[in-house]
C-alpha cells in the first residue's frame, strides 16, 4: 500500500461518519446521502495527489462534501421543477416518508423549517447548530466571511423560530 492510499484510508477512518451526517442533513435521505458520500470520497481520492496541505484536511474534505451535496440538490431542483414541484416540497416529503427518521414531532417540524431556508442560510445553520463548527471553520469551507456567516445564522435562527411558533399553533 503506498503513501497516498494510506492517507486516503486515514481520511476514510477519521471522517466518514461525520461527513455522512453532514451530507445527510443536506439531502434528507439515507440512500442519497450514501450515493453522494461515495462520490465525495472518489473526488477526495482523485484530488489527494494535488493536496498540498494549504488547508486543514478537515476543512478540505468538508468543502468537497458540501459541493457534492449542493450539486446533488441543484439536480434535484431541476427534476422537481420538471414535475412542477419545488425542491422544498420534495425535501419535506422526504422527511415525512423517511423510514430512517428517528425524531419526535418537534424535530420533524425543525427539519422541515430548515429545508425551507435559502441554501446559504441552511448550510451555515446546519454546520453551526448540529455540527458545532466554528465560524472560522465554516468560513474556510464555504469561502464566506465570518461576519456574513454570523448574520446568516442569526437570520436563519429567527426564521426557524418563527416557523416553529406558527406550526405549534
Amino acid at each position, binding site marked *: 500500500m503506498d503513501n*497516498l*492510499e494510506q492517507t*486516503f*484510508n486515514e481520511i*476514510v*477512518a477519521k471522517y*466518514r*461518519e461525520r461527513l*455522512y*451526517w453532514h451530507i*445527510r*442533513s443536506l439531502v434528507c435521505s*439515507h440512500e442519497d446521502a*450514501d450515493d453522494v*458520500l*461515495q462520490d465525495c*470520497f*472518489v473526488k477526495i*481520492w*482523485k484530488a489527494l495527489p494535488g493536496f498540498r496541505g494549504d488547508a486543514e484536511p478537515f476543512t478540505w474534505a468538508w468543502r468537497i462534501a458540501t459541493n457534492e451535496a449542493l450539486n446533488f440538490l441543484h439536480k434535484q431542483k431541476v427534476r422537481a421543477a420538471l414535475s412542477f414541484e419545488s425542491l422544498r416540497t420534495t425535501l419535506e416529503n422526504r422527511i415525512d416518508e*423517511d423510514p*430512517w*427518521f*428517528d*425524531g*419526535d414531532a*418537534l*424535530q*420533524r417540524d*425543525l*427539519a422541515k423549517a430548515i429545508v425551507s431556508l435559502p441554501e446559504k442560510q441552511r448550510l451555515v445553520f446546519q454546520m453551526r*447548530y*448540529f455540527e*458545532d463548527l466554528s465560524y472560522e471553520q465554516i468560513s474556510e469551507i464555504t469561502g464566506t466571511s465570518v461576519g456574513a456567516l454570523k448574520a446568516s445564522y442569526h437570520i436563519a435562527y429567527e426564521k426557524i423560530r418563527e416557523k416553529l411558533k406558527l406550526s405549534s399553533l
Partner: protein
Amino acid sequence: MNRKLPYKTPEGYFEALGARLSEIPQTAARRSAWDYIRPSLAYAALILFALGVGSLLFRSVPAAPAAGEADSYELMYYADLVPRTDPYAIFDAAEAPSDAVSYDSEDIVSYLIDSGTSLETINTLLYDY
C-alpha cells in the same frame, strides 16, 4: 432541544461503508483504456449518425432536371417566381398580338360615359395627358 440529527442508519452501515470506501483506490486503478476510448467513440458515432441522417435528407430533395429534358410541369416547378425578362415589356407595342383590337377616341369616350365616369374626369383623361 436535542442537537443530534434525528436520523438513524441501518445496522452495521458505517462498518460496511468503511470497507466499501477503502476499495476506491483499487477501483480507480482498474479503470481500463476502454473507459477513456468509449467517450470518443460515442462522439464519433454521434457525428456519423448526424451525417447519415443529413445525407438522407438531402437525397430526398429532387435535383433540377438538365436543360431540354424537363416537361412543362417541371419547367413551371423550377421557374423563378420573379420573371427574368423586363416586366414592362408587356407594354411594348411591337409584341402586341396581330389580332389585337384597336380603339379610337370615340370608343373610349363612349365607354367612359357608359361606365358613369364624370365629365371632369373624362376631360382630364382625354385632354390633360
